[in-house]
């Protein structure tokens, strides 16, 4: 097998597996940039997967399914925002509870939906013209999900908003120094609410992708720990939407390679590879902390109480 076939295969799989990671990571980047950690991603993805499947199966429209996933992710995130921003509950506890809630509830509500093939999966697309470019065509424009392209586009938009607009300054200010932001008249609670809910919406779609595109069927626990990878990828990406693209694709490629390379490398070692790699990169990120942009938002994880800080 020549290197081109390998490259096409790896990039193709990296995009397919990386897409849900990208969507959810983009959301988590925004939530954390505003100062709120959301460990509930896994639960939101599980609920998103179930809602997307149930809706697409009932209505016959995968887009309605994804819309339902978006909605349920948003509702769960709203709950997280209410608990952590309004009630100032511990963000980690609230997030973990939401993960448990989402996994448990999706299992309970999902009874009866397992064992059915989705009648209306979202088909992949091949872009005419572009797909016939040698190498790049089959790599990027053949048999891809529309959600992959939307995810990449979204990353660009969110990057521009975060770094090149006043909204971005506001969000970052709320995450770095909520007291100062409050002093200049920014509604800290509102900004945090919006960012957390955005995170939930995107996590919901990531879950929907799993049950409507990636593997068009529902089984309990099908998010299979991806939500935790997202938390790591957010740090890995230094809370930056474009770096999230790199992180998600890299993780997708390594995940795929952990099966491709089994003929030559011990499978136990390969199984560790994506995670070991994440640790190595995190160490490098730690060393590079001197650059201001790379560090975590200063107020990450801290509830804001006017006058206390």
């Amino acid at each position: 097998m020549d290197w081109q076939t390998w490259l096409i295969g790896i990039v193709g799989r990296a995009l397919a597996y990386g897409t849900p990671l990208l969507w959810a990571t983009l959301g988590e980047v925004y939530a954390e940039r505003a100062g709120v950690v959301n460990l509930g991603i896994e639960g939101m993805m599980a609920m998103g997967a179930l809602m997307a499947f149930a809706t697409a199966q009932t209505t016959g429209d995968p887009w309605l399914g994804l819309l339902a996933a978006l909605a349920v992710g948003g509702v769960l995130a709203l709950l997280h925002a209410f608990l952590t921003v309004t009630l100032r509950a511990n963000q980690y506890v609230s997030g973990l509870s939401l993960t448990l809630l989402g996994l448990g509830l999706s299992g309970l509500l999902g009874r009866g939906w397992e064992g059915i093939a989705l009648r209306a999966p979202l088909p992949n697309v091949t872009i005419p013209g572009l797909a016939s470019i040698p190498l790049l065509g089959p790599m990027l424009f053949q048999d891809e999900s529309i959600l992959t392209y939307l995810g990449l586009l979204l990353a660009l938009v969110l990057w521009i908003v975060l770094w090149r607009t006043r909204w971005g300054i506001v969000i970052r200010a709320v995450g770095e120094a909520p007291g100062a932001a409050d002093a200049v008249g920014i509604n800290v609670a509102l900004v945090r609410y919006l960012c957390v809910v955005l995170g939930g919406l995107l996590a919901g779609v990531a879950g929907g992708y799993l049950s409507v595109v990636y593997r068009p069927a529902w089984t309990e626990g099908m998010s299979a720990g991806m939500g935790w990878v997202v938390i790591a990828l957010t740090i890995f990406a230094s809370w930056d939407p474009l770096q999230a693209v790199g992180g998600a694709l890299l993780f997708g490629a390594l995940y795929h390679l952990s099966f491709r390379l089994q003929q030559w490398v011990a499978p136990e070692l390969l199984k560790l590879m994506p995670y070991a790699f994440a640790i190595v990169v995190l160490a490098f990120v730690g060393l590079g902390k001197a650059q201001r942009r790379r560090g975590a938002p200063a107020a990450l994880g801290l509830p804001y109480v006017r006058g206390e800080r």
Partner: protein
Amino acid sequence: MKALRWTLVALAVFGVLGLAQAKLKVGFIYVGPIGDYGWTHAHNEGRLIAEKTLGIETVYVESVPEGEVETYIDLLVRQGCRVIFTTSFGFMDGTLAAAKRYPNVIFAHCSGFKRAPNMMSYMADFYQVYYLNGLMAGALTKTGKIGYVGAFPIPEVKRHINAFTLGVRAVNPRATVHVRWIYEWYSPPAAKEATEALIAEGCDVFAFTEDSPTVITVAAAKGLLSFGHYSPMYDFAPDYVVSGQLVHWDKIYVEFLKGVLEGKYTTKNLAHIDYWWLLSQEAVELGAKPGMVINPKHEAALKAVKVKTPDLGEISVYDLVYARLAQMGAPGVSFDPFQGPVKDRKGLLRVPEGFWLSYDALITMEWAVEGVVGPWPGEP
């Protein structure tokens, strides 16, 4: 008057309690969620049938981590369970410890080999069915490469891959079975990526050990054939699921619990009770879904391929599948996938001509047969 009323209430309460005590309460501990549509789903279907058939009361706990089985056994014993089934290999030692702690409770452990006076073991094993699916896979592959997504490299899975490969090579001596391990019993993303990796290598027919229909849906999306595992998976890809392995845990659950109800099985006499149920006990079934042994869409292709066999002469693969099924399905089994001569892939003769493998050799199998390609952790 008041006293009478209280007496009536007391009588009613005692009556209900008495009834509750008369009804046998049976607990099930599952390693996965009952919605997995694989291993745990199948056990739960068996539980429901046993409950209905025998009029017993059952409770279950799902997604129990293997290290925490004792905690949940404690819970079920406190709830009044007199019989407890634990359905994962990793529950074995915890169940044994609990059996010693609760000598008045009957335990039954699935897929292991340790027993006690109040603990039996049971398994509905698929190796014969895998062999039959292998016969079909060998006839249907065009590239000569068949993909197998395996959960863990443990004897049970290795036995199944070996039996499958022996089937493949019986009709297609040059075909190979390519194995990828995912190190999970249940992980749709891992199963999906492993299948994609096998497709990239040129495999065009698939079998697997993973508790979801992922391999089937991924293969079908590329127009490739596959065999279902554990639950009826025909509906996921009616054009592409050729056949598969189906389980009927209810056969074992009903039979064993009937024995308990009749007093045949007690907390004293289980040390040598091991249900190792195969085709002839009807605990396992060959089929894409119950009643459909071979998907009619692929019958013609299987009838078109003829092979020479030592005992049946020249025969179509379609007829061969039914012939072997009959030989293994009737009492007085007259064929076994591992009947000699069988060599491992390093060339060592593992089963000499004229011999069958013993039960112990089957459940401790670590070697790989000729034709298996790919990593094989623990290969002797």
